[in-house]
């Protein structure tokens, strides 16, 4: 088990290096940061001096090696746009995104799974039909449109919720949280729901399909024949056996949410990592882009590791195979 974890972590380092290399070779296509950094009156000589100071005249492989050498020492450089250390900027933004993603993942699970179970068990009830219709909207409408619609309804027409930003945060030292005040929640709920809607419908449809599959299997029929209670069959046997794909998808989705909550964060001006990276791309802020991409690679590796470990917990067969292989 320990060997497995260590092996995965070593793989993580390799993945991060490859991601960094690829991103560095792509950066030359996003444009020149100098024009974004300086004003229009800056002379050619000043531009050239700045380019030299930032090391942008070095060949790409040299820039890459320099960056990796610095990163290995925990030195990620200064943002071109803001002149602040990249590590500090990311640390400042991470809580906003993690809270947003956490809440939307929870929403997706807590609403999506029961909806999936219901539509799987009572395929023909009117509620199932409503759920399925609504889920079509969730799947087919793009995120930014849902966000803007929610803003229009709850922010502009009804005036119940703030339309943008993150407010009412409480500073816990290293972590600024929205969870402790009503105002914080009022800012959080719309973006979280917007982000959750797609995952929610995905999970619901996944659980439904899996339930339909599992309910047809022999062991469910035998469980019925044994006279077990409906509730035990549905949740103890059927639902548990649908969970492996749900966990896989959910794991990948959380990674995707962390990395790519860009659209939701832009629409709601949510000061998280998505907003940071989109602005970095527009500005050609290379230190932020490279650090961010490597960090995202790390997230994905860690989440996949967690998913693998969860499989052991959910599926006893995997544990047996491992044991056999060890002998």
């Amino acid at each position: 088990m320990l060997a497995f974890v260590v092996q995965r972590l070593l793989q993580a380092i390799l993945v991060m290096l490859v991601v960094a290399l690829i991103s560095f070779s792509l950066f030359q296509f996003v444009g020149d940061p100098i024009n974004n950094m300086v004003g229009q009156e800056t002379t050619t000589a000043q531009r050239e001096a700045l380019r030299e100071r930032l090391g942008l005249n070095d060949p790409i492989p040299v820039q890459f090696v320099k960056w990796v050498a610095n990163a290995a020492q925990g030195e990620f450089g200064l943002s071109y746009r803001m002149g602040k250390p990249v590590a500090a900027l990311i640390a400042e933004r991470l809580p906003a995104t993690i809270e947003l993603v956490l809440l939307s993942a929870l929403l997706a699970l807590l609403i999506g799974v029961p909806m999936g179970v219901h539509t799987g068990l009572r395929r023909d009830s009117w509620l199932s039909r409503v759920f399925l219709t609504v889920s079509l909207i969730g799947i087919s409408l793009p995120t930014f449109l849902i966000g803007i619609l929610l803003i229009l309804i709850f922010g502009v027409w009804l005036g119940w919720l703030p339309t943008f930003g993150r407010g009412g945060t409480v500073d816990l030292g290293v972590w600024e949280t929205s969870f402790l005040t009503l105002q914080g929640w009022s800012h959080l709920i719309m973006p979280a729901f917007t982000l959750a809607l797609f995952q929610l419908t995905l999970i619901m449809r996944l659980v439904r399909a899996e339930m339909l599959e599992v309910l047809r299997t022999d062991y469910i029929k035998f469980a019925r024949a044994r006279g077990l209670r409906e509730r035990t069959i549905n949740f103890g046997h059927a639902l548990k056996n649908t969970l492996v794909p749900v966990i896989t998808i959910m794991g990948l989705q959380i990674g995707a949410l962390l990395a790519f909550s860009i659209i939701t964060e832009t629409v709601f001006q949510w000061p998280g990592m998505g907003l940071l990276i989109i602005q970095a791309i527009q500005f050609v802020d290379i230190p932020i882009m490279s650090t961010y991409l490597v960090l995202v690679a790390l997230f994905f590796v860690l989440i996949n590791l967690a998913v693998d470990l969860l499989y052991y917990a959910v599926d006893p067969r995997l544990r047996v195979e491992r044991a056999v292989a060890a002998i």
Partner: protein
Amino acid sequence: MHRKLGLLAAVGAVALLSGSAIAQEKVFRYATTGDILGLDPHVNNEGPTNAMKGNVYGRLLHRLPDLSLEPDLATEWELGDDGVTWRFKLREGVTFHNGNPLNADDVVYSFERQSQDASEMSFALASVKEVRKVDDHTVELVTDGPDPTLLLNMPNFYIVDQEYMEENDAFEVVQGAGRTNFANTNANGTGPFKVVEWVQDNRVVLEPNGDWWNHENRTDNIDRAVFTPIANDATRVAALLSGEIDLMYPVPLQDIRRLEGDPNVEVPQGPELRTIFLGMDQWRDELLDMPGSGKNPFKDQRVRAAFGHALDLDAIQRVVMRGASTPTGLMIAPGINGFQEDMNEPYAYDPDTSRQLLEEAGYPDGFPVTLDCPNDRYVNDEAICTAIVPMLERIGIDITLNAQNKSLHFNKIGQAEDNNTSLYMLGWTPGSYDAYNMLQNITTMDGDAQGTWNSGRYSNPEVEELTDLIAVEIDEDKRNELIRQAFQIHKDDVGHLPLHQQALAWGVRSDTVESVSQRPWNDVDLRTVVLK
């Protein structure tokens, strides 16, 4: 559980209490597309950042919304008989936000700091050789040669506190590389507002400076100002409609009518100072799109004139800009020093003349050319270019549109890639609000710091010479005559193709804002904000 509810209730009560406290003080909340780049007045030269610096830092002179100058930290000034020594008398009793008094040493120190090579703002002091302290409240600025635009540049000369900067080891101007800059995250000016808090990409909170030298006569009435960047157009409009902010800019053109329809919102509009124009490659012997031909049609004045007569500027104004622009025939906007009202007539729209001119020039069937455009820099930039394509096709030009983001566009047309363009779009606002700045950067090539954005490398010896004279001519009438001559030659040459000044449009809540001045360089001076 009950305890938790109690806690929630307590938190809610606190939120309500603080809410009502805020309701009593006058808070002005405003938003634009991007955050300020930093608080160091000497690092960046960028719109929203400069506006914020103007609220916080003092300058020798302050520019009013009508572009005229008024005394700020200097009370009187005069040019010495030698024509290069300007003597400024400093206002007495001015203090910085930290309580330190302003004196001549601070001005000398600010000059040394701002004129470092790494400073984006050094252009404002490019002509200044030396700043001398005469006594505690008198300084002398000595220029290299006579500089008629020195006073116009003074609103860009920001005064910082020497003691404060030295205490924090912040002399060096830091951008992108080097140590983190203390001065870029902390502000200590002499301006009417103090920075209370800056949370990057989230908010800048300002409060009036009770010790500001002119606090008694202040023209604003706000107790607190909150600046928020909101990048997404729709979100910014929604925030205004829901009343969460009192003012936002720019208003997307397609939303102007919608906002005007709201009884609580007003949409003041005015011309901006930036002129949008097209430029043409006039230096390569062979056009980029005509390899092997050995020809560059744009070297022929008749071809450039043909392009000028082919552009239907009124159609662009009416259809693409929905009326929110002013077609122009000059490279600078009304209000800029040196603007010539009677020369502002654009080239007449006349495709037949264009075809005839092309035929005379030896291109009866046109020629291929690529139009380079940004798609995220100016109002409807890509749409303007898309509209220009069929206008040029109509006179037989085989045109390809290449629209890309500003990072790539400016790189391609700029000196970084050796002006790798044949036909391009660019916009320019002279930073000193004087014609010389445009002549220097756009229409001349010879000499240091000239032609930085003259991407087609237009160069006429007469204009070059006139520009050098304009740089040092002190007499206003003579200088204006020289500017006229230069403009006339450039216009006859069809050196560039001016398109328009885009209109600026703000969204203002009329239920909370009594009045605010819309400065033609599109930013908010908090001094002018009066709330209801």
